[in-house]
Structure formats: C-alpha cells, structure tokens
C-alpha cells in the first residue's frame, strides 16, 4: 500500500474537521479528494504531509508509520494552491532547494544537483526559465516549477492542494492533461485535493468524495459517477434536477406523476424521497413516445459548447427542469422558445429520506 490512513480524526474549536477517516491508496495511484469547501479535504492532506497533526489515528506511508514524524522527515512532496515558490530565489534555486538543504553526507554534488534540476525542469517543460524569478512567470508556469521543486527530493508521496484552482479555465484544463501524462511517466503515489468534480473525474484513478469530515464514497470515476452512493455524491458530481416527493406502495412521486420505485426501495414504508435526474439523461421529443412522457414548454435556450441547455416548465412540476440535448437533435427538432415538447426521464435515481444538501 502506498498510503494507509487509519481512524484519522481532527477537531478544531467548534467543529469536527475530520471524523474517523480510513483510506488505503495503492502505490502509484493518482487519487482525488473531492468535496465542497470546508469539508476537511485540505486538512486531511496537510495531516498526511505533517503540516497539521491529527487528534487521533495513524498515517502509514509505504509501510512506515509516519504519524509522529515532522514534515521534514516524511519525504512527501507538497504542491500548494498558491504555488508558494520562494520569491527571492530564481527557478533553479527553487527546484534545487530540497537538495541543497540535505545533510552534507546525503547531499548530491553540485553537478549532480545541476543535472537533476535540469532534468526536472525539462520534465515540466520549464527549462527555458531556469534563471527567471517567480514574479516573472505566469500562474501555470509557477505551478509547474512548484511541481518540479516538490519532485526534486524524490518524494514517496506527492500531495497537491487544489493545484489548479488559482488558474484560469483554459490553463487549468491544459495543466490537468499534462499532469495526467506526467503521472503516467513518473508514477509516484499522488493525492490531489479539488472541489471541481470535472477535474476529479478527468484526472484521478480513484475518487474519494468527502463531506463534512467523512468519506461519502470512494471508487473509480466511473463507479462514483454512475453509481453514486447517496444523494450528496449524486448532487456533487455534476448538474442535476432534484425532485422531492414520497415513496409509497412501491411507487415514487415525481412531481404529480408516479414512477416505479427501484427494487431496493419497493417494500419500504411511506417515506420522503429525493429523485435525481441529470440534465443529459432527459429525452426531448416532439412526438409522444410513451405513456409516462411529460408535457413541457421551453422557457429558455442556452448554448453550452457542444450541448444545448433547455429550461423547461413541465406540467405537474412545481419547479422548472433543466435538460441538455445534443446540438444535432436541437437542430433537427427545430426547437425554439415557447415550443411544447414531450419530456422523458431516461434514467432516474431515487434516494429515500430527506437528505440535506
């Protein structure tokens, strides 16, 4: 196991940041800690790095109990949200820092340090900036230097705290792909913290969804996206329409309509329910194709890149429904504002109970 966390808890004055976290991460994996801000994900990362101490629990890195080691002795690479480059040092000195502060007996020779820094800067495609100062670089460039700096000390584990959140959308996407590629090259066990579900889905081997200091679900991006464990995860992993209703006698109310309850909820007593439908799992048609179709009116049409977003007011539903259709379908159906359409829910997910989000 690359990283093993056992019963990690952390209390801050007034609230619980982490509540009994257990997590195992295989060596070489790239893991996303995904959750809303304030859910404890950054605290967990800082605890693994030793920058914060847990109230209880154990942290085992590569089979070694590092719970009480200082960050200095842990040999983890840490990449900060705001880069944290040493602003008085140039790019070379920044990357070489971790090697130069080693004890004399462990410190590589000058030429070895030079080679290593050059190699790392090449790896992050920043070799041209070796003499520059952080203030002369853009955000994306700074973060790449920060990554090279973290990798310089051959860390057992690489920890990234919202590494791309301070960058603009375009750079963020580029760096994401680039990081994925880099990870395939160097294969160091990595954890990155993010509140961006897209980033987590695109980048990670496994996603750990955290909310209010607890792990809600963990699994591959596919598993987590397709089979969310609960309403929170479903809601957090992308846009969603939420319908509050009741489960009764094997049926679930969806607006004023009734649909069959899923098998596991067939025999429960009457209960409040929440039904989720993702916008792209809603079918739009000009002809009625089934009994259960709902009649809706298009209130708003929005261009969402390749998709078209529709805001529909549907008969029997109190709140408007958001749908997304491929551009082609939109053009074929010649949809326009005010049109009456038939709306079908291709895939619904029902959770019992009144889960607060």
């Amino acid at each position: 196991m690359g990283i093993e966390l056992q019963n990690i808890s952390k209390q801050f004055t007034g609230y619980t940041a982490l509540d009994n976290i257990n997590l195992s991460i295989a060596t070489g994996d790239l893991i996303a800690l995904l959750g809303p801000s304030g859910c404890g994900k950054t605290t967990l990362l800082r605890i693994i790095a030793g920058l914060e101490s847990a109230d209880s629990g154990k942290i085992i890195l590569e089979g070694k109990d590092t719970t009480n080691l200082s960050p200095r002795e842990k040999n983890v690479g840490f990449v900060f949200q705001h880069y944290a480059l040493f602003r008085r040092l140039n790019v070379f000195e920044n990357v070489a820092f971790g090697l130069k502060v080693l004890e004399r007996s462990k410190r590589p020779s000058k030429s070895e340090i030079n080679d290593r820094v050059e190699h790392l800067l090449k790896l992050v495609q920043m070799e041209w900036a070796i003499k520059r100062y952080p203030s002369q670089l853009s955000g994306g460039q700074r973060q790449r230097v920060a990554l090279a700096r973290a990798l310089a000390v051959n860390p057992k584990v690489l920890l990234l705290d919202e590494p791309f959140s301070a960058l603009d959308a375009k750079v963020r996407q580029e760096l994401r792909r680039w990081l994925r590629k880099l990870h395939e090259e160097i294969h160091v066990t990595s954890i990155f913290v993010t509140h961006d579900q897209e980033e987590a889905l695109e980048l990670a081997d496994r996603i750990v969804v955290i909310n209010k200091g607890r792990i809600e679900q963990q699994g591959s991006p596919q598993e987590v996206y397709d089979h969310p464990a609960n309403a929170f995860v479903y809601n957090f992993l992308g846009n969603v329409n939420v319908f509050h209703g009741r489960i009764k006698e094997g049926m679930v109310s969806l607006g004023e309509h009734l649909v069959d309850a899923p098998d596991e909820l067939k025999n429960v007593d009457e209960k409040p329910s929440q039904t989720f439908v993702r916008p792209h799992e809603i079918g739009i048609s000009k002809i009625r194709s089934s009994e259960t179709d709902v009649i809706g009116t298009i209130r708003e049409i929005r261009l969402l890149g390749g998709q078209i977003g529709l805001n529909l007011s549907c008969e029997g539903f109190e709140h408007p429904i958001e749908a997304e259709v491929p551009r082609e379908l939109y053009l074929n159906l010649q949809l326009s504002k005010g049109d009456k359409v038939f709306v079908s829910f291709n895939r619904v997910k029902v959770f019992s109970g009144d889960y607060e989000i």
Partner: protein
Amino acid sequence: MLKPETSTTTTAVKRRVSDPLWVRIVLISLTFLFFVFFIFLPLGMVFAQAFQKGWAFYLECITEPYAIKALQLTLTTVAIVVPLNALFGLSAAWAITKFNFRGKATLKTLLDLPFAVSPVIAGLIFVLLVGSRTPFGGWLGEHGIKIIFSTPGIIIATLFVTFPFIARELIPLMEAQSRDEEEAALTLGAKGWQIFSKITLPNIRWGLLYGMILCSARSIGEFGAVSVVSGHIRGQTNTVPLHVEILYSEYNFTASFAVASILVFLALLTVVGKVSLEKHFQKHSLEN
C-alpha cells in the same frame, strides 16, 4: 464618438476631485511656512550658532576629549542596542505572527508601552529596579557590577525605549506574508534555521533594516531615560545629547550647538538611509 466622450468625462471628474486653486495655494504655502519655521530655521540656527566663532573653534569643540568620549559612548550604545533589539524584535515578531498562545494580544499591546511611557519614567523604573539602594542593585554592587550611573544602565534604558521599533516594523510585514513559503521549505526537508536564513530573513530584510535605522536614530538621540540613569559624569557617562545639554546649561552656547550639529548630521544620515530604503521597498513590492 465614444473616445472624445470618455475623455471629457475624465477631465470633468478630475476637476471635480481636485480642490480650487486658492485652496491649493493656501495649503501649499502653509506647509512651506511650517517647514521653514519648524525645520529649516531651527536647523539653520544650529549651524549658525555652531560656526559663530569660526571653523577653528567649531573643530575644537567637537574634538575636545569630553565631546569625543560622549560620541564614543553614544556610538557604543547604538552598536550594542541596535543588534540586541534586532534580535529581540525578530523573536517577538516571530512569536507573535507564527505561534498561537495565550496572552498574545496583550503582548502585542504591551509592545507599545515604551512609546507611551515618558522616557523619564522609563529611566526611573530602572533606577528603582537595579539602583544601588535596591536589594538586587545592592547584590550586584557587592559583586562589582554597577548598572545605574554607568554604561550598562545607559544601554538598558536605551534598549527599553527603542525596543518596539523593529518588532513593530516586522509584525505587520510578517503577518501579511502567508506561511506557504516556510511550509514549502519544511516539506522539502529544511531545518528551522535553514528556513529562517534562506526563506524568512530574505523576505523581511528590508523591513528589518528599516526598523534598525529608526532604532539607531532614536538610540542616538535618546535623552530622557538616559539622563535619569546616567549620572552625568563627564567623560564617563555622558552621551552626546547629555553633553549638549550640559554645555548649554553652562552658557557655553557655541560649543553646545557645535556638538548638537553632530546629532543633526547623524539624523540627516538616518533620514537619507530611510528614504533610500523606502525607494527600494517600493521597487520590490512592485516586483512581487
């Protein structure tokens, strides 16, 4: 069409924001008058008085043994006080900005005490604390250590009066800087002193220097506190400001002003140092 419109609005805004001509003239002349009466004129008077009896006499006044002794004592005091206060200021600023502990707010407030307390009282405090009639002072005296009416007392009094300068310069600076860089250094395996010398100190060095300049200026000029603990022994416990006062009270005006002109020179020097540091500061803050 758009461009001329926007430019007229900006001039209109400018006119509305700036004051009428007569207000500007009055304010500027008032400022000038103030400078003339309270800075240029007195400074000029110091030099006029100092040179009243010619160059030769001036040189004689500032090179006579007592004056030299006074200058030596003042510079010794500065040489000891400034490094000590730099050390104290650094550790106080470090403790206040990097750690959380009980009584932190109180400590921060008390840091201003030497500014608030009259220097004379500051001097008296030390007389009461370690004077030869107190038990502690007596004990020290028995062991041959004399603090009051000797150089250590002057140094201690100056330390007390000037200790807030550096700490107060560094605290806001260190508060504004996040801990990120230090944490990064820590995760890269740096030891405490490596982090301090390679990361923290370079980030605050201009602030530190600035504080040290203010601290030296005040140490050179301190009169009140030093006057109480010094005992005014010529050639032994007289600093430059005390020497000026003694000469003055002996109606030896020309000599008094001649020695005072040394203080003026030192003050001008610190002002120049301060200004050039401020320029450097601005340049650096722009870079970051």
